[in-house]
């Protein structure tokens, strides 16, 4: 079964090439070259260029996944950490100053990576399918929006409960606790359910929160209903931010037309990265602890887990609350960054998107989930959109595809790639389930679970004792 660990006999150049590139020095040179090439393309790209969308989609995704390539390289840990920090803390912001679009994209990626990591605790670690995860994100977003917005007359503003922008930092923990509390309140009645039932109930809960947000403008205006809350507070910019951004821009030889929004975006970028880093550490520590082992045990066999002393309800509640807490923190950031919150940002679609990130990346693994978030977000926000932009740009210059002599002007608007987002997304998921069922970067345990296998005595016997699983729930037992 474990034959994969035996290295294949090095077949000619291929094998030796692989060995050659695994040498730290060679790999280091390659990684540096990789970074230089893609960063340079991004720095040289000009939005006025006709082929900008194409080049941009070719260069940005490889750049964004460079931390993963660095991580899996044979370099020493210290160098790897240094390179990743270089990419995340220096190169990315610089590219962002050069072109704000990339900054926006990377903030979106960081936000959704964090959300996916939170959902991964519930679905990946504890094995509880939650289709209403976006609700906790909404709780965090609304908590901050309700108390900090300035444009709408709500109960809070009438009562003078409006907080200043700097309270943003206080509201991150508030969002954490609020979302965790809501998570527990939902979890208590629901966690006796399993599998499909749990999924449906959480789905309903997610919709409930959205509908609540939509309708809580009457009789007292709490959320301003469908119109949402605008003018949400933002953390104040530190004094050095604007001049620093302007100076860096000058040093790079570019004219930043409006420095303040760019610095604001940079601030959000760094907050998002800090939150993401914290969440990664927390997720890792949870996974690698008695709590994480208990979650895995519950996922593997609930009956055996409880018989070995794992308190099911408490552990499941903990998973629910921790996942929710992450979403709550990120929700606060999301509201501040968009400075606008409306119920439509928290639809079922979003819950499904986040779940797709977790599954595409690799259920249960931290690196995989982040990669999943990157891939899905890039597809949604950049690659498909850019293809459409590219076609339009070519239309504008009346480009004719040579050999087949097809004037791009005749490309029907119905066939714009951006309109096929969901289709491409669906295809991607189908292909994934066929070729990489355990995800792009599978977690080893999941890989084993997914691998085809002969029925084991355990499973055969489970067929003999189907009652046990149902009977563990005392309610069922009483009915039985």
């Amino acid at each position, binding site marked *: 079964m474990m034959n994969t660990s035996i290295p294949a006999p090095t077949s000619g150049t291929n094998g030796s090439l692989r060995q050659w590139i695994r040498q730290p020095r060679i790999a280091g040179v390659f990684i540096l070259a990789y970074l230089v090439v893609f960063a340079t393309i991004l720095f040289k790209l000009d939005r006025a260029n006709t082929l900008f969308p194409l080049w941009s989609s070719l260069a940005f995704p490889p750049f964004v996944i460079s931390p993963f390539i660095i991580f899996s390289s044979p370099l020493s840990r210290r160098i790897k950490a240094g390179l990743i920090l270089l990419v995340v803390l220096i190169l990315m912001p610089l590219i962002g100053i050069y072109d704000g679009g990339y900054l926006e994209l990377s903030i979106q990626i960081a936000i959704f990576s964090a959300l996916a990591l939170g959902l991964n605790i519930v679905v990946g670690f504890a094995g509880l399918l939650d289709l209403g995860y976006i609700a906790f994100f909404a709780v965090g977003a609304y908590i901050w929006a309700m108390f900090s917005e300035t444009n709408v007359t709500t109960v809070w503003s009438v009562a003078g409960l409006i907080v200043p922008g700097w309270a943003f930092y206080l509201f991150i923990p508030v969002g954490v606790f609020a979302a965790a509390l809501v998570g527990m309140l939902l979890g208590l009645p629901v966690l006796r359910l399993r599998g499909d039932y749990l999924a449906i109930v959480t789905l309903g809960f997610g919709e409930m929160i959205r509908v609540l947000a939509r309708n809580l403008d009457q009789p007292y205006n709490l959320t301003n209903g469908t119109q949402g809350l605008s003018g949400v507070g933002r953390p104040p910019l530190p004094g050095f931010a604007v001049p620093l951004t302007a100076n860096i821009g000058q040093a790079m030889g570019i004219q930043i037309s409006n420095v303040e929004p760019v610095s604001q975006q940079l601030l959000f970028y760094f907050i998002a990265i800090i939150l993401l880093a914290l969440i990664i550490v927390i997720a890792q520590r949870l996974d690698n602890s008695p*709590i994480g082992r208990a979650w895995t045990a519950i996922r593997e066999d609930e009956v*055996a887990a409880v018989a070995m*002393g794992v308190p099911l309800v408490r552990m499941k509640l903990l998973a629910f609350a921790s996942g929710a807490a992450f979403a709550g923190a990120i929700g606060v950031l999301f509201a501040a960054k968009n400075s606008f919150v409306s119920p439509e940002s928290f639809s079922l679609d979003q819950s499904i998107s986040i779940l797709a990130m977790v599954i595409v990346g690799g259920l249960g693994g931290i690196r995989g989930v982040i990669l999943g978030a990157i891939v899905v977000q890039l597809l949604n926000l950049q690659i498909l959109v850019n293809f459409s932009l590219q076609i339009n740009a070519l239309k504008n210059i009346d480009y004719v595809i040579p050999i087949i002599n097809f004037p791009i002007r005749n490309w029907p608007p119905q066939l714009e790639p951006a309109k096929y987002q969901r289709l491409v997304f669906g295809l991607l998921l189908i292909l994934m389930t066929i070729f990489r069922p355990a995800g792009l970067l599978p977690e080893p345990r999941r890989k084993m679970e997914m691998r085809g296998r002969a029925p084991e005595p355990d499973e055969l*016997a489970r067929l003999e*004792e189907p009652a046990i699983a149902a009977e563990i729930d005392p309610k069922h037992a009483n009915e039985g």
Partner: protein
Amino acid sequence: MLLEVKKLSKSFGGIKAVRDINLNIEPNSISSIIGPNGAGKTTFFNLMTGIYKADTGEINFNGKSLLGLRPDQVTAAGVTRTFQSIRLFANMTVLENVMVGMHTRLDISLWKTLIRPASFQQQEERVREKGRELLQFVGLAGKGDEVSRNLPYGDQRRIEIARALATDPKLILLDEPTAGMNPNESEDAMLLFRRIRDERGVTVVLIEHDMRVVMGISERISVLDYGEMIAEGTPEAIRANPRVVEAYLGRRAAGIEQEAAS
């Protein structure tokens, strides 16, 4: 008495799976529960461990009632079990399986998990150490890092026992622990059951079909048939008990007058 069960009953729909069972288990003993298939043995274990809720009756363990406790609370009280069908955490390593068993004996604090003070690391090290010691005890030394599903059947049974012992039990309920073993393996398993009692001071109750194991190891035997306790006693007494023979072999073979043919 370590364990006193009085008038324990459980029905599923119209079927009385367990009817008015009385059972006493003395500390540091090895006893068996036997009976034909469907006699209610496993149901009895499930009642004991809180997986099923009893309809009526009492279960007193170590001076404390187990009735109404959740399975994890029963485990915390000192009763552990293995399953008739092996129920390992198949994709966890052998050592991880055993470590999960220690859950109720650990200080599980979210705060400590996140902050990782020295006490957290020490506890993890202790857990790992005790896990290795238990694996050695059941004869799986050095196999801790293997994925448990990759181990052969007999070893998986041993993992289950090690995992159950990790809960620090006073009483271990083994549900057909030698099922599917050849005579040699059964022999080894019996040795292990004795060592569980002798070296770790854990009282052992087995459900068993293999009569060589039952007769070879048990100090007391209880016989269940159709949910009822039809006999209880020493192996010799059970062997000679006509009702037991009848339950196992049928009336004619037991030499008792045959009922009207049907």
